[in-house]
């Protein structure tokens, strides 16, 4: 049992997630809820976010790192998963996606997906999430909770029960039902299931790429 950061001798790179969008879309809340749910699952988590002058309308991002081992270095350069909630975020941050990482795109907010992504990954989830939120709730702010449902069903990194608990801790009481409905909607929206990271076994290799990141 690892008790703190300095009790671990592992050099495993933690899984990294970047959620990017415009201020006001709720991407930082989405990262916060995801981080809380991962902690409930017993994962070691570090969540950081961009702190800038922007409040609403500017590009923001939220990074979540998680691992079974305590995480020493709190930043990541490249990401196993990127969630683009807005075109600006997609164009700016898609280049930080790891080879064979998963890219989530909210097509109702994003334009064309950059062509180079084809040569980086085939794991692409593109859905009109904001449009779906507007249809269902007549309000686009529920998009980020739908996103959480999609992440949970597609990647299986977080248990659905704990995600539910984490959502309820963060949303106001009177919107609890609608948020749970949004989460459920997201969970059912896509049937695709992808692994966050796939190990290709190379003979003779010790399999630690950590020195290069």
């Amino acid at each position, binding site marked *: 049992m690892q008790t*703190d*950061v300095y009790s671990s001798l592992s050099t495993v790179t933690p899984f990294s997630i970047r959620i990017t969008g415009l201020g006001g879309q709720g991407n930082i809340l989405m990262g916060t809820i995801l981080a809380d749910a991962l*902690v409930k699952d017993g994962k070691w988590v570090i*969540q950081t*976010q961009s702190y800038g002058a922007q409040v609403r309308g500017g590009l923001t991002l939220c990074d979540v790192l998680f691992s079974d081992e305590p995480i020493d*270095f709190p930043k990541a350069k490249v990401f196993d998963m990127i969630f683009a909630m807005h075109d600006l975020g997609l164009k700016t941050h898609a280049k930080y996606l790891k080879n064979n990482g998963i890219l989530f795109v909210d097509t109702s907010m994003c334009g064309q997906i950059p062509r180079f992504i084809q040569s980086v990954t085939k794991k692409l989830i593109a859905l009109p999430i904001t449009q779906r939120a507007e249809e269902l709730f007549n309000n686009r702010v529920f998009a980020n909770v739908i996103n959480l449902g999609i992440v949970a069903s597609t990647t299986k990194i977080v248990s659905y029960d704990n995600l539910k608990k984490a959502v309820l801790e963060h949303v106001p009481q009177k919107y609890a039902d609608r948020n749970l409905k949004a989460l459920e909607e997201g969970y059912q929206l896509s049937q695709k299931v992808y692994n966050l990271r796939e190990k290709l076994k190379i003979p003779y290799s010790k399999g630690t790429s*950590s020195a290069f990141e």
Partner: protein
Amino acid sequence: MDKKFVIMQGDQACAMGAILAGCRFFAGYPITPATDIAEVMSRELPKVGGTFIQMEDELGSAAAIIGASLAGVKSMTATSGPGFSLMQEALGYASMTETPTVFVDVQRGGPSTGLPTRPSQGDIMQARWGTHGDHAVIALYPSTVEEIYRYIVTAFNFAELYRTPVIFLMDEVLGHMRESFHLPDPEEFNIVERIQTKDLKRETVYQPFLENSELYDDIQPLVSMGRSRFHVSGLFHDESGFPVGTPDLASRLMKHFINKIKLHLDNILIYDTYMMEDAEYVVIAYGITARSAYRAVKLARTNGIKVGMFKPITIWPFPAIPLKKILSRISGIVVAELNMGQFSHEMSRINKGLVPMETVLREDGALIQPFDIVDALTKLVGESED
């Protein structure tokens, strides 16, 4: 293990730990990246019967916590570099009046307003020599959110025990990052409580500035103003606190300031060492840089370099004694820090060219990458860079 596994922001952990330590007064002025401490305090302090004041500026904040502490309440303030500069005058006053206070400085890039949302470790020397005149100081600098929670309690204990302002350093990444950790049980902590006036006997004459306490066999603890009446002054003063400007008294008081820290180094110096048993080289890093260094040490170890790590929690007083011991049995050191060489300057002072030393310095507001430290290590070991 049945400890609660939680996720907390560094600033939040600082505030919650302070409340656990018995802090019941907070005066502050919002400044990124320390605003969150004030925010949590404003929400949580009233729940435990404490007081939160947003002051007009940092000068007022620092003065307010000194007043509150003299009145008998454990108090603290939190700020960042620019605000910490403004607090230096009051910090000196707290030193001179030997008032237990905790100053949290969540460092950001400087000088001046600098880089508000980026980390730096540029206030190391300011924490030591920021205020004018000779004085002893205690500065702690944790490196994880869990350590923030633990060592803010230590900071309050040190302030009470040694009757001195304690500077609690953090940095932007530590302050803003949310991290998971096993929440320590409140019963794990020994909390030094303030002696209340009602604990004094009616016939006891309490002199607040006695050099050695006959009542307590050590540094005279501060009791709250109330039953005991005493005077407080920024001028050199006698045992009762009234100004006396004679040279021999000034010299005695000054030596007392220095000695009360120096004679308790055993308790005050907190540091951690990792993988030092067979180490030939050592990486010295503190605060958020210790995280980069720890990864670098692990990476270097997997590549056959026998390297250990020294992580001071107590930055001031400088951990010269344990470092001297390490210097005598290794063949090279790397010092990593997010400034242009403040701690490494002290390091070279005690090293005196004894062993080769490499520094990894960074000032652009980004974290030192683990690989930069590995690079410095390989340079030290003498391998070619390819």
